[in-house]
Each structure stands twice: as structure tokens, then as C-alpha cells.
């Protein structure tokens, strides 16, 4: 069975630090650090720092309200565990994407983004030119669906049919020879 594909959570910007470590008292240095995901950090920030309601925050992160509440409750459990057991806290990972702004250089015509949003870009990373313009903000994951349109083909007899969104090619059988279908590789 295919694993459920998690919907990507949107982050406004990555956290400024990579984690926390405890000090004073009896610290068990060998204890495994707690891994707080980026989306969990963002949930805590939106809810308790920006003081949004769960519904408003879920819209910000582009997930449903129940999903947001699940992320948030997992954050609180992890933070409580780290505080009570005196464990280190790492902030990393998670299924996230950022609101990336894309720039285009006027000299070499290359397009680039800025993954470290706290540091503004002054020069083109390729040719060092200072002439570049913003060409757009990254597409929302809704557009991912258009990526799934294509052609299913049978690897055995070569039968082709248009791909149906929502039913993976690899779970379908060829109507001619009953072999498992495949996605036809794109030509380029």
C-alpha cells in the first residue's frame, strides 16, 4: 500500500537558531536530543508568539485546521519532554517549503533564489552583477497537481493511455496484457 503523501507545510522563514541546550544541574550528556521539526517550530511561533488562532495559523501554513492542531500538540509534547528531562533540542527537518522569491540577473539571465532570507542578496551569485529583478514567488503546492498529468504506458507491450489523476500508474494493469503500468518518461 502506498504511504499517504503529507501535504507540505508553508513556512514564512526558517528559525534563526538551530536548537537549545540545557545548562546547570545534572545534565545527562548522552541523552538523545529532541528533534523539533520546522513545521512544529512554525506552529508554536504563529500560535504563541504571533498570537494567531489555530484557524488563522493553519491558513498561514497552508494546512487544514485539525492538522495544524496536531502539529501544535506534538510541539508542546516535545517541548515538555525536553524541559522535564533536561534534553537538548534540535530544530531541523520536516515536510516544509518556504515562500521563496526568485530573482533574475540582468547580465547573465540566470534565475536564482535566496535560501537565507535574513541576509539580503546584493549580487548575482553567478556573475556578481548587481542588476537583477524579482521575477516571482514560488508556486504554491496546488500547482504540483499539474505535474502529475502525463501518459501511462505498459512496459511490456507499449500500450499507452492518459494518466488519471489520483490513481498511481504502478497500481494499474495494462488492459491488453495485464502487466503493471508505468509512467511514460518525459521527452527531454
Amino acid at each position, binding site marked *: 500500500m502506498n504511504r499517504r503523501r503529507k501535504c507540505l507545510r508553508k513556512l514564512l522563514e526558517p528559525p534563526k537558531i538551530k536548537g537549545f541546550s540545557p545548562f546547570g544541574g545534572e545534565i545527562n550528556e548522552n541523552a538523545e536530543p529532541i528533534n523539533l521539526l520546522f513545521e512544529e517550530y512554525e506552529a508554536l511561533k504563529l500560535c504563541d508568539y504571533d498570537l494567531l488562532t489555530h484557524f488563522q495559523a493553519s491558513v498561514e501554513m497552508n494546512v487544514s485546521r485539525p492538522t495544524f492542531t496536531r502539529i501544535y500538540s506534538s510541539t508542546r509534547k516535545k517541548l515538555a519532554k525536553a524541559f522535564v528531562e533536561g534534553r537538548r533540542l534540535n530544530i531541523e527537518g520536516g515536510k516544509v517549503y518556504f515562500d521563496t522569491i526568485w530573482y533574475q540577473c540582468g547580465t547573465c539571465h540566470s534565475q536564482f533564489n535566496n535560501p537565507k532570507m535574513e541576509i539580503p542578496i546584493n549580487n548575482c551569485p553567478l556573475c556578481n552583477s548587481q542588476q537583477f529583478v524579482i521575477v516571482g514567488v*514560488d508556486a504554491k503546492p496546488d500547482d504540483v497537481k499539474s505535474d502529475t498529468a502525463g501518459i501511462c504506458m505498459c512496459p511490456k507491450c507499449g500500450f499507452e493511455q492518459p494518466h488519471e489523476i489520483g490513481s498511481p500508474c504502478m497500481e494499474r494493469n495494462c488492459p491488453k496484457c495485464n502487466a503493471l503500468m508505468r509512467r511514460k518518461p518525459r521527452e527531454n
Partner: protein
Amino acid sequence: MRVAITSTGNNLDSTLDPRFGRCAFFVIYDTDTKAIEFIPNPNKEATEGAGPASVQLVAAKDVSKIISGEFGMKIKSLLDSLQIQMIAIKEPDKTINAIIAMLETK
């Protein structure tokens, strides 16, 4: 700082590969030591998941920029969380030599 460039061949005169996940070779260029390394891409013929596998390959080399022709949806979010900069060149006939020369212009 290390930069990954996708290449169609394993010499400096080969051109940029417009695809990221299924490019023929990765060129790892170190801007400090000027070292150039060619890595054949094991995911060239992969039917699925070539992009994320290739990201893992280049992220293990500790690069901070990737130069290619295009980046797919699966890798964009991955590279965002790894904080690797994407540079897309829309001129596919540029050679690796020319790109490295551009990186060196100050």
C-alpha cells in the same frame, strides 16, 4: 564555498545539463581551493525519485549552491529546508568552463 553544477559530460568543455535529477555528471567546484571534482550520477536512469536521491548525493558534498537548468517540485522544498541556493541557467549551451569563469568574476 562549494558549488554543484550539472554537466552532460566529464570534462570542462561539456555543456550544462538542463535537468537536475537525471543529469549525467555533477561537477563539484570549490571556490576557495579551485578544486574540481566530477561525479557520475547513479540516478541517471531512475524511473522515480531521481531528484531527492541526487539532492542527497550533492548535500553530502556540503555544497551551498546548485547550478542547473531546472528544478522539480520535489526538490525545491527539500533544498529550501537544507538552505541550499538554486541557480537556474536558461542557456543550455553554456560550458562548465564558462560557468566556472562566471563564478570567479569579482
